[in-house]
């Protein structure tokens, strides 16, 4: 989603852009990266528009400011909505991608997108994720023609980032409000609350939607620590990709060992024999295809 596609005249003059995120902490729903850009010469006017850190504003005020900035022809904006399924699956891949990396990629994707429509970006202000200095180096390497300001609390320091935070926050809130659950089980509802793990509404929603086999609907970020506290209510699932990890390295992690002991598998070797067919003792053709001859079962 982004502002009108026709490139405004001011975009070919040096422009500044702010980038901020909404929904990084919640256990459910999408994470949204938003950006707002304008000509450097518009910066002064921008600071009179009452943009402030979106978290300090009431929802109605944010909605109002978002509508105002959408109508402002001197401002451009774009968002990247990252689906919770994408967050969970990237963080649970065999080669895990952590949330900082996902965040960095999203921010860089927005910069690329804005550059590609022809906006002359010269300065980009970013609310930091992880170490600010390292992040700045990473961004500067990718985009050598842009001057980066990476700072903590950038959303309250720079109006252009405050504006981006409003874009992101309003988009995230609307996305969650209008969310249509993929799952079709009976008695599901959409009283998600804010999505933050401490929110009583969110807690109640998680409690109402936990499932012993499937865990949760895909709106939930399974990679969040909050979900682990529900694991006692769920059937254990052992992944082949996790097993491979274990076989591949000599030093098995303590955590993994603990998990196996919990379900009564002590010798790892025995486990794979129990669950996996093998062609043991047969000719190579069968061994390679794990085809076992079962005469008694």
């Amino acid at each position: 989603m982004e502002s009108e596609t026709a490139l405004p005249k001011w975009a070919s003059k040096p422009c500044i852009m702010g980038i901020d995120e909404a929904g990084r902490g919640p256990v459910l729903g999408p994470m949204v990266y938003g950006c707002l850009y304008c000509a450097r010469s518009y910066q002064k006017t921008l600071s009179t528009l009452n943009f402030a850190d979106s978290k300090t504003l009431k929802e109605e005020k944010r909605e109002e400011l978002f509508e105002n900035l959408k109508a402002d022809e001197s401002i451009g904006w774009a968002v990247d909505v990252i689906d919770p399924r994408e967050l969970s699956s990237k963080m649970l891949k065999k080669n895990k991608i952590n949330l900082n990396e996902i965040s960095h990629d999203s921010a860089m994707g927005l910069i690329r997108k804005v550059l590609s429509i022809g906006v002359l970006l010269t300065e980009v202000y970013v609310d930091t994720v992880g170490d600010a200095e390292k992040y700045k180096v990473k961004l500067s390497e990718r985009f050598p023609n842009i001057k980066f300001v990476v700072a903590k609390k950038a959303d309250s320091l720079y109006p252009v980032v405050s504006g981006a935070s409003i874009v992101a926050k309003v988009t995230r809130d609307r996305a969650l409000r209008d969310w249509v659950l993929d799952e079709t089980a009976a008695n599901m509802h959409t009283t998600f609350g804010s999505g933050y793990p401490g929110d009583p509404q969110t807690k109640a929603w998680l409690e109402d939607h936990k499932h012993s086999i499937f865990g949760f609907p895909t709106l939930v970020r399974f990679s969040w620590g909050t979900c682990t506290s529900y694991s006692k209510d769920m059937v254990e699932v052992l992944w082949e990709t996790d097993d491979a990890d274990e076989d591949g390295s000599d030093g098995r992690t303590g955590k993994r060992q603990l998990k196996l002991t919990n379900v009564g598998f002590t010798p790892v070797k025995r486990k794979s024999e129990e669950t996996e067919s093998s062609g043991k003792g047969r000719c190579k053709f069968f061994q390679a295809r794990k085809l076992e001859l079962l005469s008694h079962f």
Partner: protein
Amino acid sequence: MDGGNEGYPLLRSQTTVDLSRNGEAVADLTGKVHLLPCCIKYDGSTSVSDYFKPKFSGIEVDGLRVEEAYFRGRKLNGATLPLPDGYSGFILGKKSSDEKTNAETSYCWEANAKFQNLTLWNHDSLPSNDDAFMRTFHWFAVAKALHQPVNVEDLEYLPVDEDVV
């Protein structure tokens, strides 16, 4: 387990599998059998179709139409394999009439359902013809070659190295 008798109690030699169930129709699970790359420590029914929603990924690999679905937060890539003509898949259960005898010692099975295809799912990798499970299908061709009756004509046209003869 018994010490002698190659580790099997005598009863074990009476394993039977009843696929016909006396002509009684069994449920057809074609399109609903999924092989997941994980072990779910549960045996029983659950509302699969409400939670597990495969969608076409837009990708094709080795002529396989790749589907995607999510399970416990992980993204799975799958492909549906038809079973070759003349083959069927069966879901077996312990024969119900044997309940009076201890289920643990019964080796009489019967078909509870059958299927003509199954969907094979990978975590973190796209399905391909090199997947271990796909490779088990090679057996069908080998079995056919091994068990096809041989008649006199087949023997006549056998490519024989004449120098040796």
